[in-house]
């Protein structure tokens, strides 16, 4: 938003360039009013202090998912996070559990590599099987087709398991798998369940629900992982295999 008046806020900004021994923290005082977002503040630094500041952004309205950062240690989309909602100095760091490229930019390749084989194209925009061009607007409920997940990585950053186990597939990928089960659209359901029925997949979650807390898009990944486990338990019962205790976060097969 446009800045008015003389108020400034102090940002403690994570800076890192490949080849640096360690990241360092850089202080910046940025002009701010009640509507100044973290992204606007970072853009101000880019424009007025250092054009080399590395920063991912695209849509500016919580739709693309590129501008995820940690603000005072918690995961947020910079574009919809107001400085005014945070007291005192504001630390801006890259999201966790992904490699830092530079400054507050992380490499998203390992994030997408976690997903099951069918890559998540924006599937929900496809016409539903019963819909066609002539009835596409019959009702909002039937035609809300865009997926909620914006692939921002905040859930993975917030996940305490991902922090200690780099092989854990993490909330976004597991939530995506559960979404595929709900609406397979030709994907191989059994293959998805095989993929999810692993110690580093659905059973890796300890039900801390930090992912759901962090999600800016109401995907509720933890609840989806629990639903995925219910599905896996049912399948294991049918298969006569060991069935982990229900809803016990630490239950592993």
């Amino acid at each position, binding site marked *: 938003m446009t800045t008015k008046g003389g108020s400034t806020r102090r940002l403690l900004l994570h800076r890192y360039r490949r080849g640096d021994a360690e990241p360092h923290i850089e202080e910046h005082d940025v002009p701010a009013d009640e509507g100044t977002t973290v992204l606007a503040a970072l853009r101000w630094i880019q424009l007025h202090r250092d054009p080399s500041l590395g920063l991912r952004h695209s849509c500016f309205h*919580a739709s693309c998912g590129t501008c995820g950062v940690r603000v005072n240690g918690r995961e947020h989309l910079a574009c919809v996070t107001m400085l005014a909602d945070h007291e005192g100095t504001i630390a801006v760091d890259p999201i966790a559990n992904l490699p830092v490229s530079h400054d507050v930019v992380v490499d998203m390749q390992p994030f997408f590599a976690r997903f099951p084989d069918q890559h998540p194209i924006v599937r929900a925009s496809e016409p539903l099987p019963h819909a066609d061009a002539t009835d596409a607007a019959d009702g909002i409920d039937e035609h809300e087709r865009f997926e909620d997940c914006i692939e921002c990585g905040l859930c993975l950053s917030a996940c305490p398991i991902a922090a200690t186990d780099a092989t854990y597939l993490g909330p976004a990928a597991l939530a995506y798998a559960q979404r595929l089960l709900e609406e397979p659209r030709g994907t191989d359901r059994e293959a998805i369940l095989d993929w999810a029925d692993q110690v580093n997949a659905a059973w890796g979650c300890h039900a801390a629900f930090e992912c759901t807390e962090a999600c800016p898009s109401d995907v509720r990944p933890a609840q989806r992982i629990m639903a995925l486990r219910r599905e896996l338990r049912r399948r294991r019962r049918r298969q006569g295999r060991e069935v982990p205790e229900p809803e016990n976060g630490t239950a592993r097969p």
Partner: protein
Amino acid sequence: MTRGSPHVLIVGGGGTGGALAHDLALRGVRVTLVERGEFTSGTTGRHHGLLHSGARYAVNDAESAVECIEENTLLRRIAPGSFEENDGLFVGVTDEDMAYLPGFLEGCEATGIPTQVLQPAEALRLEPMLSPDLKVAVRVPDATMDAMRMPLRFFATAKANGADLLNWVDVADLELAGGTVSGARVRDLVTGRTTRIGADIVVNATGPWSEQVASMAGVDVPIRPSPGVMLAVRGRLTNMVINRLHASGDGDIVVPQRALSVVGTSSWFVEDPDDLGVPADHVQRMIDEGSILVPAVRHAEFRAAWSAARPLIGSREDADSGRELSRTFKTIDHAVDDGVEGFVTITGGKGTTLRGMAEVCADVVCRKLGIDTPCSTRDTVLLPHTAAYAA
């Protein structure tokens, strides 16, 4: 593609640059693309996500309207899954809007845009959140797209076909000697190192920044960066794209996106496309005008407001005159226009026409390089956007 094949350096990682990289890679050209930030971070990713039917331009800008409806049809074929097949309505609420209707329908017919006139009761049945004051609605094949992920599919496919796509690489200067551009001096923002990239042709695909980049080659590009403000509110207030049935004006479109509704837009001119700001009075205008179409806009919860700079083609004089600038695009071979070899600019246009822009530009580039392989992007189905992140 071989090491010996010609090398094209594309400056700018928006939709146009990505689509051009894809087109050239399919024609066997070696491509390097540099983008100083994240891909689609300039103008492309910030647009409201409308796949234009062209109806918005049918009355005053037939050329743009035809481009839009052709690309609208084609993109649905090559990027399945990237569009909501939700259609759009042009909604008339005043007598003035009704006076615009006959010309609008004629313009759509002349430019090949299918229309269906709906009476108010029918329109309200389809979209109950529309203003109860509406007098007519015209259904057109608008659609919602993901402003980042649809263009990323061009990047993904170009990459799979061997194009070298480099984000976080800023052009410090173009190399110009003897009236020929032969490459660029670039700074890698990840490492801080400066290097040079040589090229047979450098293409300037930097949208509203194209005047700045062209000036590095000592030539002028008549581009006026024209930002518009957009407002996102929580709640999917309508399922279809809702346009005001009138000659274009501020706040005359509501685009549903996932669980948000995006209201756009306004228009002014700036010199520096990096320094846009979000004028508070423009945001208020989005609320005021948007709620004429969809009254719930006024009370919906605020999610975000932002600005994006359109690259409009026109001289400073044209812009100063307040005349409406065309939304069409232009490829400039600076050898022809300015006597500078090895340098081409592609600019103007809009998200919907990215592929068509790339085709025209790639034709010019290939002619200069003596390559006669035709464009094949019309029939090449694009990879999913996630492939753009593949190792």
